[in-house]
């Protein structure tokens, strides 16, 4: 049900993002989706990649702080209001969403990555609502 997201700490300076990407490219790791959260001094690059464990090891070897975080990948139809319906279920259950970003699957949908404070519970709520999860293998 969960997908492992690869997160890496990046200092806010020229060239660092590029070096992360180069490290992954060298290991032939494909980036399926990414999101960059930034503050004034640093950023956190969150990625869904073809090989999360391998990506983490490669980044660490190159001196980056990297970690894996479980998130859920949810398939949504490309229609108005789909995301709102889904989120309303989570809100009703009183679960806080920490972050979310778009996931590209290469098909005509509007899938998302979602991280909630209580991920187990959120996933349970979504499952009950009949939401379709995407596994890494499908990606």
């Amino acid at each position: 049900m969960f997908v492992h997201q690869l997160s890496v700490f990046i200092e806010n300076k020229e060239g660092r993002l590029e070096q992360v990407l180069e490290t992954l490219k060298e290991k032939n790791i494909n980036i399926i989706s990414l999101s960059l959260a930034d503050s004034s001094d640093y950023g956190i690059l969150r990625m869904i990649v073809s090989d999360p464990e391998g990506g983490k090891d490669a980044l660490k070897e190159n001196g980056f702080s990297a970690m894996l975080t479980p998130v859920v990948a949810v398939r949504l139809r490309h229609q108005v209001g789909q995301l709102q319906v889904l989120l309303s279920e989570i809100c009703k259950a009183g679960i806080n969403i920490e972050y979310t970003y778009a996931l590209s699957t290469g098909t005509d949908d509007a899938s998302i990555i979602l991280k909630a404070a209580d991920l187990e519970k959120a996933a349970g709520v979504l499952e009950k609502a009949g939401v379709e999860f995407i596994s890494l293998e499908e990606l």
Partner: protein
Amino acid sequence: MIWNQTKECMSRDEMQSLQSKRLVKLVDRVYHNVEFYRRKMQELGVEPGDINGIEDIHKLPFTTKNDLRDTYPFGLFAVPQSQIVRIHASSGTTGKSTVVGYTRKDIDTWSECVARAFAQAGLNRDDIIQVAYGYGLFTGGLGAHYGAEHLGATVVPMSTGNTKKLTTMMKDFGATAIACTPSYLLHIAETLEAGGDVDKIQLKAAICGAEPWTEQMRKQIEEKLHINAFDIYGLSEIMGPGVACDCIYHKGLHVYEDHFLPEIIDPDTLQPLEEGETGELVFTTLTKEGIPLLRYRTRDLTSISYDKCECGRTLARISRFKGRSDDMLIIRGVNVFPSQVEAALLEIGETSPHYMMIVDRVNNLDTLEVQVEVEEKFFTDKISELENLTKKISHVIQQAIGLAVKVKLVEPKSIERSMGKAVRVIDKRKLV
């Protein structure tokens, strides 16, 4: 104007004779009243009778800041507490402050020395002096205040923190002088410039100290405000501000050596250096009663000159400071050791001991940024948690050093590892 013609213009012979007489009495006093010095002298096999004048100074033991901490709070006091009329303490040292005590006579001596400095800056009883050093345990505020009162000037005890009120009163009262840190004065100057008020003030002199500053900065202040700026030196262990001050010729700071006997030593061999050679400044407090110190190592690096100054004073002069023989930083007037920051970081436990302190001067106020590496064990991919960590680190460091800091998280291994002594500080202020 020379405040104390007799003492400030003595011949070298007369001065040495006065210093010798005072040193003999001092040694006798500390030997009999301060356990610490009696023990130290006994260890060195020296008795008061062995000290016949300043030529014997090298026989006496040194005193360091650590000795003051080890004897916290009153261990080095030479008089009963009933004779102490005031306490001051140094800012922000790990755990313990260094505490000093003054007798009534010490306060008088201090006021006399500060009055000499103000007179050297061309001030007298007709002047209105704003004292904008912090008032409190820090010696700056009250030291300058008592000296200015002793001079007979009108004292405005501003303290620090309210620049708007300070500039308003400077205009409204027609203040003619200010005593504050040089960086604060530059900040005040810019506030006046921004308000188009520089022509509306009657300031003619500034007596600045408590932190290192350059000759360029002094000139910058003079040009901005159309005043004369003077460099006053002091440290709480010896007295506070007013141990030395420069005159209108700005060729070194005149040491009030009838009270504070200066020496320059090699910080490594501890041997005395010749006139003109740069080394560590050491003071013996010849007349102090509350906490007299023998050969106190200031850690400030300078050289000394005994030539008569163009101003007429014959007092020894020390050159502008060339640095320190330890790693202490003075940031906004507060003494900071990198080891304090290190101890604070280790206390948190979540951070790596790899850090870098970046000291800078932005808008003429000192800033301290501490860079800390984001280690694997406390990395989280949530911005809010990293921000909380940043806040926690700044809080702990601020508690330890008494200064607000900006904490910046950086990537692991991005702080340069040194092969020898670790470089923990980048002080960009030196480039001013």
